[in-house]
């Protein structure tokens, strides 16, 4: 068994007085693994990812990331854990007052990487995701798909140890979706563990990686599907 970088034990959560969205969720994320999280709308896929990127504290259970108990860790040390994680948010969360290149290079800048170097790196990545012409554009001028690609570029620019992507192909066509998945695969080959929440069946068929299915508040591991031609 390879190194475990994420561990959820008996995790459960409910928003305010609402129903439990999941309970007793247990699973491990190994270094360099690739998983899809599937489930119906409202099954808690996004909430599960939120817990993993430390944007939500579950009501029950324990969450360990990179060997640290996230409930016990001092708040001042949380950013250090977050720096090991790349996140593609469902709502993109691009900063509207910054240009696309500033948005994409932001994770490098917060890690005190030299501005010129971070720009160079961001420009290369933007070229790769097909946004080479939109570097100086502000996010409100971009289409949904372009925002999605910019958000992905921002998430992977630091080559994180764990990549969490919430519906990263929701706003792009099949060709771009496939291209993005290849990008995630490339990143995975360098050792990044990838966890993607999706309900895109074509993608699931084309990329036969293990699936964690959220059903009735619990996670089930599904068998690997046969690769579509």
């Amino acid at each position, binding site marked *: 068994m390879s190194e475990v970088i994420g561990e959820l034990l008996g995790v459960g959560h409910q928003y305010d007085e609402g129903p439990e969205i999941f309970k007793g969720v247990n699973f491990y994320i190994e270094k360099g693994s690739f998983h899809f999280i599937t489930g119906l709308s409202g099954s808690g896929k996004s909430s599960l990812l939120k817990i993993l*990127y*430390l*944007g939500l504290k579950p009501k029950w259970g324990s969450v360990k990331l990179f060997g640290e108990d996230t409930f016990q860790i001092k*708040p*001042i040390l*949380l*950013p*250090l854990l*977050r*720096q090991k*994680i790349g*996140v593609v*948010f469902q709502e993109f*969360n691009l*900063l509207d*007052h*910054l*240009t696309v290149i*500033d948005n994409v290079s*932001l*994770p490098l*800048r*917060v*890690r005190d990487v030299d*501005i010129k170097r971070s720009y160079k790196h961001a420009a290369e990545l933007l070229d790769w995701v097909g946004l080479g012409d939109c570097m100086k554009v502000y996010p409100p001028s971009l289409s949904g798909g372009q925002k999605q690609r910019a958000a992905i570029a*921002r998430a992977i620019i*630091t080559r994180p140890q764990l990549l969490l992507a919430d519906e990263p192909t929701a706003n792009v066509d099949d060709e771009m979706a496939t291209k993005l998945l290849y990008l995630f695969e490339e990143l995975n080959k360098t050792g990044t563990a990838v966890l993607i929440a999706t309900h895109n069946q074509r993608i699931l068929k084309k990329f036969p990686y293990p699936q964690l299915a959220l059903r009735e508040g619990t996670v089930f591991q599904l068998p690997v599907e046969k690769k579509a031609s």
Partner: protein
Amino acid sequence: MNKDQDLPLRSDIAARFVPKIVILMVYLGTLCFTFTFFMIHSTLLWEEKLTTNLSIEIPFFSDGSSANLQTQVTDLLQNTPGINKVEVVPKEEMKAVFHSLLGESTNIDTFSLPAIVDVSLNQRDGFDVKNLEMRLKNMSPLIQLIDHRLWQSQVSNLLFTSTSLALLLTFLILCSTLVTTFFATRTSLLIHRKIVEVLSLIGATPSYIAKQFQRNAFKQGFIASSVGAFLAFLTFLGIYFLFKNAGQTFIITTSFFFEVLAIFILAPFITAFFMMLSARRAVMKALCS
């Protein structure tokens, strides 16, 4: 692009009123501090000039015995331990004082002016005045001993109280500026909560986020307090020339003028530095709790 633009703080509604408040506070603060400085400076000058601690008044006797008594008194004073200097005030000096009070036309020579002997002590405290007074009264019960230390200490106390109050006021003005910065930063954090949240989620440390607010507070503080200090300097010059034109002696020396100028130059740096610290404290308190 530079690092302080991750947050759109320049167009911040919450901070729009801050520069105006800082201008006013720095204006009042620097003037108040200059006044304090003036008080300290004047007190020191005044105390430096104060050499007479006691005065002995020897009455004028028409039988001509005054001169003899004056000699006896000065002999006694010169032989009393603790006395540093004994000086008889010249008649001309006394006349000049009376002329300034009663007018030049008054013939002072017709007055029976007493002789005044000024006495400087080695140390202001610890001298037995009662004993000296008793010995002087034995020579003549009409001799008067005036102890200047009483009113001098009262004036000193008053000056000390005024200086302390002015300093306290300066401190309160600085505090109110810092409190304003603190709450403006907190409001700004709330306004930009979403951006701060995204920055945190992509790994920005509280210190990184605080630096953005710090730089903004420093810039804003420096510009606003420079304006405030400049206006205060103009007011100071205005007061100076007003006194000068009115023929009043406004006790300032060249060194005092340059020291005051230094206050006006340093004020923006000091204010901006403390505003920067206040902004940092506000952010770190909010993000690390």
